[in-house]
């Protein structure tokens, strides 16, 4: 029980450091942009409006006070209104969140569907010639940046063959290329890790035992080796979340997928700071949730980990 409380407080500590770090970074990014009020008010604002805004946001106060004031607003989940649309920033970001989560889910699903069988196959018989060739292809694929793959896919399937529509996410057919692009840069790494873990598991004693009592090759692979190999894989999948999200930004821009990434891109171009602050906040919360969740899953599949901690 005590161990559980201390683990919980450590998680909470992580969360506080993350949010504090991100909000502080955003605060100073705003300062680096010059006078934040001028950025916020736009180019056409008159002196009275600037003075009024300055007072409204507390920018006539000393820097430290401003910082505390800003943190207070973040605590109240008040990020202000978007400079572009006038909508409240946080609800705007949250309204775009489902599309990003859908993309992440689709990308992850394709990645797992491809990586698990291919990785297990590569790991089960590492010495075969065909396995070597596929391994080489995987190493090569790992060098392909996701957005380059996306551009090539668009060129082939949308521009040349005209099989698929490319933009938006209303039509289910537009889901195919973005999720494939996302999977293309997640899968190679995952395949290599699964293959390495399966190969490692296949060398263990219990595999020899299973073989000696006459278990079939498939049963050995899927019932004995694979469950033991999946552990490192779960760790990687959660660690890849940051990677997944970063990749999603550029994929969303490419396919005009109406998620947080596209919003980030548009808001960065217009320096729409309330929205940018809300986005980094939401992403920080997501990162925390995913890490905590994967930690729990991790403990569930491998009871040794929970014990080692306590």
């Amino acid at each position, binding site marked *: 029980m005590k161990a559980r409380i201390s683990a919980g407080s450590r998680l909470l500590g992580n969360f506080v*450091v993350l949010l504090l*770090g991100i909000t502080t970074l955003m605060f100073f990014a705003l300062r680096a942009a010059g006078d934040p009020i001028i950025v916020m008010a736009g180019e056409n604002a008159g002196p009275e409006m600037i003075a009024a805004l300055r007072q409204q946001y507390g920018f006539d106060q000393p820097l430290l006070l401003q910082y505390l004031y800003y943190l207070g607003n973040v605590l109240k989940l008040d990020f202000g209104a978007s400079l572009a649309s006038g909508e409240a920033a946080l609800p705007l970001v949250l309204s775009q969140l489902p599309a990003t989560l859908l993309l992440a889910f689709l990308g992850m699903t394709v990645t797992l569907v491809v990586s698990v069988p291919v990785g297990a196959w590569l790991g089960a018989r590492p010495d075969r010639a065909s396995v070597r060739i596929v391994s080489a292809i995987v*190493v090569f694929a790992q060098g392909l*940046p996701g957005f380059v793959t996306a551009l090539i896919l668009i060129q082939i399937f949308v521009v040349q063959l005209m099989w698929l529509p490319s933009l938006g996410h209303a039509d289910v057919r537009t889901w195919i290329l973005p999720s494939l692009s996302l999977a293309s840069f997640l899968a190679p790494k995952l395949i290599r890790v699964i293959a390495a873990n399966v190969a490692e598991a296949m060398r263990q004693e219990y595999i020899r035992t299973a073989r000696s009592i006459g278990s079939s090759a498939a049963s050995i692979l899927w019932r004995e080796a694979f469950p033991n190999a999946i552990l490192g894989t779960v760790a990687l999948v959660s660690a890849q979340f940051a990677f997944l999200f970063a990749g999603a930004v550029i994929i969303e821009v490419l396919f005009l997928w109406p998620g947080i990434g596209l919003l*980030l891109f548009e808001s960065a*171009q217009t*320096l729409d700071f309330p929205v940018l602050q809300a986005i980094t906040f939401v992403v920080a919360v997501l990162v925390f949730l995913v890490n905590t969740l994967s930690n729990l899953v991790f403990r569930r599949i491998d009871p040794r980990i929970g014990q080692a901690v306590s």
Partner: protein
Amino acid sequence: MSARANSVAGWWRRIFRRFGSLELLAGIALFAVILILILFRAQLQTHDPYVGDLYDRFSAMGVGGHLLGTDNLGRDVWSRLLEGIRWSISAAGLATVIAFLIGTVVGLVAAQVSGWVRTLLNQIVDMALAFPSLIIAIIIVAVVGRGFWPLTITLGLVSWPVFARVVYAETLSLLERDYVAASRAFGARRSAILLGHVLPGLRPTLTVVLAFHFADMLVAESALSFLGLGAPLGVPTWGNLLQESRDYLMVAPWLLIVPCAGIIYAVVTVNLIGDGLSSLARKRGLRIDL
């Protein structure tokens, strides 16, 4: 005859032993090509990369003396590619060096100190690793503007935690080795242990991380430039070339293919070097977990 064949085989074997792996050798050879293209850029360019001939727009590859065709303003793609390589490689390289320096210092400090400073540093590194750094990079670059230094410094500043994590873990394990304990018992100073044992011990791991990080930075640079947030307008880096190609996908697919091929070539090459270095380290009995 057979003696000669033997000596050739022996020669190869010596090279292999020196470089340790086929991947490393291939990677270095392929990277040498990039360096040659950068060094002899002026001699290899067939046209002025910035000046086009409007009567010669969208020439296909190999037509009219244009090795890789021309773009929408009739500029020679081959010459532009060569012009941009130097920019992309040096931006990625410098960003890697910045991340390496900051990360190594933070990692070493975190491993040397104890108490709350260590906890805080580790927490910062943990969280920075979990947070998608590209998002921060996009925002910073949008604020400070395009350009070589803004981009390079930003990429370095958002990506150093990778090095900090590796250096921290490696240093802790090195400090527990018997030979370090022995030299400590002989009264060696902390600085002497650091310079004499820890830094040399970090080298194999760090070279591997450096290689992979360089590849990541190449991708990040091209991605940001492609988004219009990296290289200044007009500089023909891979990302900018890709950006410019987008409006002409139907008429001039080579405008897309050429920079794609450039990025893939460079990234695969650097990954080969990284893979080679890590298998070399494994052969020498070191374990590298990334």
